[in-house]
């Protein structure tokens, strides 16, 4: 079964907000990794709160679009956050949707 793996990389302090948001949009699970990174913005407060986080969630196409739109709208302007998605092949995919 083909589903979307949505990846969000953001400043650590947005973690709880983003998790809540993706759950509300229909995500049934997620995986979090501590990462470091650099992008178009320079230093950020997270130097003190610890590193960035990468949040990955496997969802159906529709949910993926909702999450991506929401992220761009809410966080793109003020915070260091990026989002991308790709199609993956999963087994027993009904568990995720």
């Amino acid at each position, binding site marked *: 079964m083909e589903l979307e793996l949505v990846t969000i990389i953001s*400043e650590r*302090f947005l973690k709880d907000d983003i998790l809540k948001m993706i759950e509300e949009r229909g995500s049934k699970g997620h995986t979090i990794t501590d990462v470091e990174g650099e992008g178009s913005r*320079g*230093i950020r*407060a997270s*130097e003190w*709160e610890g*590193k960035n986080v990468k949040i990955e969630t496997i969802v159906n196409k529709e949910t993926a679009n909702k999450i991506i739109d929401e992220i761009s709208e809410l966080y793109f302007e*003020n915070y260091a956050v990026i989002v991308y998605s790709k199609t993956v092949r999963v087994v027993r995919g009904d568990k995720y949707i």
Partner: protein
Amino acid sequence: MDTIITNLTSPVVMAFVMGIMVKAIKSDLEFPQVLYKSISIYLLVAIGLKGGVELSKTPFSEFILPASATIFMGIITPIIAFVIIRYLGKVDLDNSAGVAAHYGSVSMVTFLASISYLQTEGLEPEGFMPTLLALLEIPGIIVALMIPLLQKSSNSSFGKAMHEVVTGGSIVLLLGGLIIGFIAGPVKFQSIEPFFVNGFQGALFLFLLELGMVTARRFRDLKKVGFFIVAFGILVPILHGFLAILIGFWSGLSLAGTVVFATMVSSASYIAAPAAVRIALPKASPTIYLTASLGITFPFNITIGIPLYYAISLWIGG
């Protein structure tokens, strides 16, 4: 000058300088972030506990005036800082408030360095100073974050930022330690005393070594922030320190207590404030407020500020 050299050759200050050097020679030495965080936890709990035990021995009447003086300074210093940076520096509203929040709050390590320094001078400040540290941590941030609220339409994340400030890791550990130390009192504290007292200066040594490395990274941004911020980061602490010395003596603090009080007030937060400002004022630039507080004021206070406040205190009230 002499007191500055005494200060510069104390082990903890040398550790800080060593940390800066380590980065200057581009060494690949890295402190695990977890070690850094673990030492912070230890230092905050230890300060809290010791402060609480001391507080349990202090009569309320002796404590009330210094406590009021602390809260007063917590309210007045962010306003001073804001006015200077906004109207003298012509910095925009969000960045001005962001910086003001940092200078209204306090730096734990600067506080500790001043106590270390006084001990080498043979002086012992009041035991309840850590309580004042806890009292000073929060109000300045609240005041500073309220300024943009008054000047523009209400900000939805102010509440979230307040929760962050009040329940932030550093304040929780400090207050929790204070309360436990206060309830436990000197006798029950004995069992955990070796861990939290004997190891303290050494842990502070390692902490400052790491902080030196972090500060060195900030130095690279000095050029970006411009001359005004650099001057601000040195002169405002002196101004705040000077005011604090007057108020400190007035509130009945000893010479040593006044020096620590001045150091506290003059110091700028770089742990509690950045987290709150990031949430409440996302448009304020971390480059500006972190460079000012961590890249300028912190090293200034650690090396020159503390002996300076001591000299002024001696001159005014010694």
